[in-house]
Structure formats: structure tokens, C-alpha cells
């Protein structure tokens, strides 16, 4: 359908907009025929990604990640817990993903979005199974005290690829995390060491007075792809996700190992070749994200 008349530009613009609203699938397919997407991206390329570390000054570690318009804010607060009997020298991580009503017109207050609990669980599984963090590093006093890291991720703008942005912000927040220096006081409680009181440091803690950083081995990065007929669209926007339902998420770590593959149903079947193509796109994306993360970390160190 073409606005073939010579009437004013405003009229033809409204026709395009109306067509987009009334026949979204055909509108997108017309673009796919020319191997391009509605925002002029190539099929396999992702949107511009930015990372800012230390967005929340009151948290022990935080990061703001933006993929296109999708914005995620991750923040980590460290608290002290008693480790379990089975793993007396390991700490723990509690990950939660929130979608407050500001992020999208589809989220209503009082009714949490369906996507929120799904992504929360997905993130939890991915981060813990990727082995990025050694829980033994979170130990304070074996058997008595260990760190519990509460990671909260808030979606501020939901424009597709929520899991990718959330994972990126989580990894960035962990790389920004500064573990506070603490010591054991007489009552057996762990307290923060502040500048004006001198207390005995724990024997297990390193003797430096600097705040510690976590060692992250092989952070995971992900790419979500949409499958539609024979096309594979990388990094979909919310509009694309709402009309084409089949989604595949590939998570790779920095040594190109596959951490997880997630395909939750959908009308399009994923043959081996399709999966291989998705993994190849994810490899390329992993390199991009890794360099974005490294750049953000080095920018922080310069400051």
C-alpha cells in the first residue's frame, strides 16, 4: 500500500502511521523483504548500548545500562548473614527484577508484570550457573558470618530485550561493587570500619585498608533474537516483540562457552541451522558488550 497521491506530506505521514497501527505485521514484513528493520537497522545488528557505573551513590555497587531505549538500573546492597550448615564458607546472592509502572503502559500498579518474575528467575539461574562469582569470596568468618549481596534491578523503560539489558546491568554492577571493610566486634557482630575508630581487622580479611573488589571470572553476556518465518531479528524492540512471538535467548560467557539457551515456545520451530545462526550473532554481540563493559570500567578508574 503506497500513499501514491501527491497531497501534503502530513497526510501521507498519517497514512503510514495508521498503516503501522492497523497492520503492524505487514508493515514490518515489508521492511524485512528489503533486509532492513523499521528503525533502519540490519537484521542482525543490535541497538546502541551504553553503560554508566556508579549511578546510585548510596549503594555498594550500581550500574545503569541502556540498550536503545530499554533502560535498566542495577544496584547492590551488602548485608551480613549466617552461612548455611552445608556451605559454611560461602556467601549468597539474592537477585530480584522489578518492573515499576513507569517503565511501560502495560504495567499497572498493584499487578506485577508477568515478565518480571520470569526474568527474575532467568537472571538468577544465569548468573549463578555461569560461575561468574565465586561465593567463597563472600565469606567473612567461616561458619559464622558471610556476605549476602542483594541485587535489585529496576526496569526504567521497557522497550524490548529486557533480559539482555538486565543481565548487562547486573554484570556491570558486580564489576563496580566495592565490598566495605568490616571487622568483628566484641558482641560477635560484624560492623563497618569507619575512619574515626580503630578496631581489630578480621584475620581472614586482607590487610589492606582499601575496599575490596570481587573477582569476576568469565562474565556472561546475552543476545535475544526474534524468529519470524526465515528471518532472525537480533535485539528486538517492544513493538517487534509484540507482533512476532518466537524468542530465542543465547547467553555466552567471555570465553565463548555457552551458558544458557532459552526458547520459550512460539509458533516458529528452531532448526539446528537457526540455532547456530543465533549463536553466531550472540558471539559477535558478546564481543561488543565486553568492550562496552571494559570501557565503562576503565572510565571509572580514570575518575
Amino acid at each position, binding site marked *: 500500500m503506497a500513499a501514491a497521491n501527491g497531497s501534503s506530506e502530513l497526510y501521507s505521514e498519517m497514512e503510514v502511521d495508521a498503516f503501522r497501527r492497523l497492520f503492524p505485521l505487514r508493515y514490518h514484513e515489508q521492511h524485512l523483504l528489503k533486509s532492513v528493520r523499521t528503525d533502519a537497522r540490519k537484521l542482525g545488528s543490535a541497538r546502541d548500548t551504553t553503560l554508566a557505573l556508579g*549511578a*546510585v*551513590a*548510596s*549503594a555498594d555497587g550500581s550500574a545503569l545500562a541502556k540498550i536503545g*531505549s530499554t*533502560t535498566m*538500573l542495577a*544496584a547492590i*546492597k*551488602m*548485608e*551480613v*548473614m*549466617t552461612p*548455611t550448615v552445608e556451605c559454611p564458607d560461602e556467601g*549468597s546472592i*539474592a537477585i*530480584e527484577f*522489578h518492573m*515499576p*509502572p*513507569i*517503565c*511501560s*503502559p502495560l504495567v499497572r*500498579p498493584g499487578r506485577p508484570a508477568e515478565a518480571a518474575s520470569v526474568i527474575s528467575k532467568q537472571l538468577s539461574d544465569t548468573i549463578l550457573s555461569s560461575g561468574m562469582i565465586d561465593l567463597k569470596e563472600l565469606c567473612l568468618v567461616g561458619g559464622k558470618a558471610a556476605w*549476602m549481596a*542483594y541485587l*535489585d534491578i*529496576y526496569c*526504567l*523503560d*521497557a*522497550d524490548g530485550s529486557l533480559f539482555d539489558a538486565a543481565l548487562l546491568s547486573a554484570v556491570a554492577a558486580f564489576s563496580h561493587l566495592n565490598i*566495605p571493610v*568490616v571487622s568483628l566486634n566484641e558482641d560477635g*557482630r*560484624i*560492623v*563497618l570500619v*569507619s575512619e574515626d575508630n580503630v578496631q581489630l581487622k578480621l584475620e581472614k580479611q586482607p590487610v589492606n585498608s582499601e575496599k575490596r573488589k570481587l573477582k569476576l571470572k568469565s562474565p556472561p553476556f546475552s543476545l535475544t533474537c526474534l524468529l519470524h518465518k526465515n528471518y532472525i531479528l537480533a535485539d528486538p524492540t*517492544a513493538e517487534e516483540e509484540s507482533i512476532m512471538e518466537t524468542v530465542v535467548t543465547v547467553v555466552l560467557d567471555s570465553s565463548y562457552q555457552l551458558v544458557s539457551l532459552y526458547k520459550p515456545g512460539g509458533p516458529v520451530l528452531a532448526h539446528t541451522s537457526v540455532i547456530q545462526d543465533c549463536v553466531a550473532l550472540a558471539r559477535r554481540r558478546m564481543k561488543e558488550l565486553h568492550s562496552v563493559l571494559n570501557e565503562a570500567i576503565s572510565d571509572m578508574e580514570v575518575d
Partner: protein
Amino acid sequence: MASKTGSTPATYSPSPATHKKKRIPIADWVCPDNRGFYQCRPAYLRTGAVSTAAGSAYAEFGNTKVIVSVFGPRESKKAMMYSDTGRLNCDVDVFAVVLESGGSDLPVVISCASLALADAGILLYDLFASVSVSCLGKDLVIDPISEEESYNDGSLMITCMPSRNQVTQLIVDGEWSTPKIHDAMELCLGACSKLGKVMRSCLKDVVTDLKE
């Protein structure tokens, strides 16, 4: 910003007793960021922070960071009764998230909401600006940070429409004497009109950027 789920073990924060409200003599109080008592924090305001919302704004006043988004007008679920004349019921939803709480949160949320509503194109009588004042002993501190708020004897918050010179909201709590309230209100109204000008210029900049 941490949340505790029920299934995880009990934890405590290692920060030392957070509320030993040590009463430092107020006469010696110096604002940690070297502001004068009657000086507000520098404000950073930006509209269009959330792409999925009809209108949105982001505000940063010192360490207080707030995002507000506005959805609407959209269909209201309220009136379901039969009517023989046509009726269109609409709701406008305004949602706010405080990303970091550095003191004086509610006034910042209100001013930010005003910008977000303007960004959404909702018809307004006027923009509204909001400022709060804390009473620390004999002194009045405008736009207090969280530390100042925790030591205050009383606080007063005003929301007003600067161009119309009308007060839409006034919240007072704590200990106040009448002359003190007068002084505090005048301080706030002065600050509100300045904030109103800053908000207006923020909105104008968006339009001039679009034109370029």
C-alpha cells in the same frame, strides 16, 4: 534500594547504629555541600526520559534522583453504567520512582511530575513547583538533605503555581512558631518561583532543540 525476600535467611546491615541522633550544636551546623542555609541545591531537569511513556521527566537535585512518567489520557475502567448519551471517561496515570533518596524527596517528585505532565501535553492551569524547608533550632534550611531532615525540629513543604501565585499544597509538621512559619513560607515561595523559571527554560530548550 535493597529488598528482602521471605525465603532468604535473616540478614543485617553492618553499618554502625544508624540512628545515634547525636545532637551537634545547631549553631555549628554547616551544610555538608557548602551551601548557604537559604540556597537550594543545583537542579538538573530533563524531559523525555522514558520512551514508552506519553510524557516523562528526570530530576536530579544533589543526590536525590527521581523519574516520573505519565501515561494517558487512557481508557478508564470506572463508568460501566448504561447511559443514553455518549460518554468518554479518561484517566491520566502519573507514576514516580525515587532512584536515590538524598533528602527532600517529595518536593522533587512533585516538581518532576509537573514537567512530565507538561511533556505529555496534558492541559494544565500552570506548572507547579515544590520546595521544602527544615527548621534546625533557630535556623531555617531550605531544600534539606537527608541528614538535615533527620535532625530537624519541624519541616514545611509548599507546592505552588508560580505564574498564578497560588499555593496548591502546604504540609507542616513538627514544632513551629507563627513568625517562623511566615518566614518559612516566604522562603519557599521565593524558591518556588525561581524553580518555576528553571522548569520553564527546561521545557523551552526541548522545543528549540527540536526546531534546530
